[in-house]
């Protein structure tokens, strides 16, 4: 946990795979199709007199499709972010308030006391300022 995003975490913890880009892409594609379907479909359902011009005109309808592409891309990205970051936090999870100010915390999940001792030793030798045990709901 940290007050700022840390560069270089990915090299240490392994490159993270993120599903957000898939959300964005799928959302944008759906938005595009929906936008064009909306404009063209409603044009066919309710026929305005167009003076011989086409009922389904491509340039204006592409603009509508473009706007809805961006809209659904944005909404899908936000949804993807919340899902992949596992927010909002429903269950109580370990949190160190000082990490929102100027402290950096490393959390290690241990399931027994010997594991905790081992982890505490590794962290202390690495130069940790404080080492403490916190419990989290299962």
């Amino acid at each position, binding site marked *: *946990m*940290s*007050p*700022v*995003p*840390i560069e270089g*975490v*990915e090299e240490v*913890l392994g490159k993270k795979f*993120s599903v*957000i*880009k898939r959300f*964005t892409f799928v959302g*944008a594609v759906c938005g595009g199709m929906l*936008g064009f379907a*909306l*404009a063209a479909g*409603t*044009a066919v*359902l*309710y026929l*305005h007199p167009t003076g011989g011009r086409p009922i389904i*005109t491509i340039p*204006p*309808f592409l*603009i*509508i499709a*473009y*706007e*809805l592409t*961006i*809209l659904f*891309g*944005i*909404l899908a*990205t*936000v949804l*993807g*972010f*919340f899902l992949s*970051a596992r*927010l*909002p*936090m429903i269950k109580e*999870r*370990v949190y*160190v*308030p*000082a*990490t*929102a*100010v*100027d*402290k950096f915390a490393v959390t290690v999940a241990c399931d027994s006391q010997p594991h905790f001792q081992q982890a505490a030793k590794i962290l202390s030798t690495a*130069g940790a*300022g*404080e080492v*403490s*045990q*916190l419990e989290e709901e299962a």
Partner: protein
Amino acid sequence: MPPEEQSLVYADVNRDVVRSLLVTGPRYYVALYTALGVTVLCFFFPWFYQLFYGIGAAGMNHPNVWGTYLSSFIFWIGLSHSGTLLSCVLHLTNSPWRKAMYRSAEAMTLFSLMVAGVMVFVHVGRPWFLHWALPYPNQMEMWPNFRSPLLFDVMAIATYLTGSIMFIYMGSIPDFAAVRDRTTGWRRHFYVLMSMGWRGTDREWHRLGLAYTFLAVLIIPLAVSVHSIVSWDFAMSIVPALHQTIFAPYFVVGAIYSGTAGIVTVMFLLRKYMDFGQYITTVHFDNLGKLLLALSLMWTYINLIEIFTAWYSGSSAELEALTYKLFGYYGALYWEMILFCALAPLLLISTRFRTSFVPMLILSIAINIGMYTERFLIVATSLSRQYLPDAWGFYVPSAVEVSILLGSLAMFTTLFLLFVKLIPSISIYEVKETLATPSNKTGSDAWQPSH
């Protein structure tokens, strides 16, 4: 790095931003209540009068069927491009100096869009029919005409508003978490909700970084398209001075220009009244000044092109419209616009000017006055001189319209004043990224184990 920033540490940033939220002096309340009062008196009361009396209460008539309401709408949409430029474009170019400013710039975007939306309600005269612009199934079996630029506008502005809200909210989640830990009462409940349980784990940071960049990439073309679409409200007509392809770039450049000038104004006020002198420094004003200069030169070029193409066309209607714009009834306003938006910004060539706060404030206000004049002239001069000489006329805004314009400014101010007390107006985590990482020592903020 300027001397003031070198002594800042992480904890100072939290402290200053929380102070800006919690500590409120009497000056703030005076400003807020004045702004609110002016909004009600100068915006809502005249608008209700107009709703009762009819659109004739505004000075619009044949041939000027559009007036200051539309120019105000375009002005506010234009001002909303500030956040997009500063926040999204400069994020993608990794500019370090944007970090202290972008939250307020994004807030300006949001509130300008909201005010622009309310201006639409005033502009249409009969807002109880406005829901017909939305595509919903109805008994009349009617659907909106999506071939019209007005409908492009509906889609574009709805998308832009949604996108801006998502963008500013997502970028603020870590800051809500930071201030949540230091507040109590209703504020704490509000920030707990808004921060969604953010803890600052590397997974969360990584996802936020990705999502934020994707949003920035999506919002930039959106902003370009929004103002192009607004320009097509004019350019897709056949009125001589409006039917020009230059309008899309003209409006986009003008929007970014007036938006950046708006940011300079807001930054000056934040720096002065919210005590953010350590965060908003001469570096920021210098860089904003350079941006303004570049945009001013582009804007001047586009104006010259407009004059040139109208003259080069040889069309009598275009030439008449051009002559009227430069030397006709509104000629003085045209030259005032040129003075404020093309000539005065040349002062920005001087570094001394760019790094002086009060001159930058005065220039930024002058630029925005000039840009409002530009929007007004686009509407008034073109509609006054269309094809048929016996349909020529002129237009003077009525008291109701001038009052509503002032009221819209007050509405924007009210919203912004509420924003600075509810949402961290400087991005805590991004400013921290520009500071030195704290070393391993225990200070007064040292965390104590819970057991």
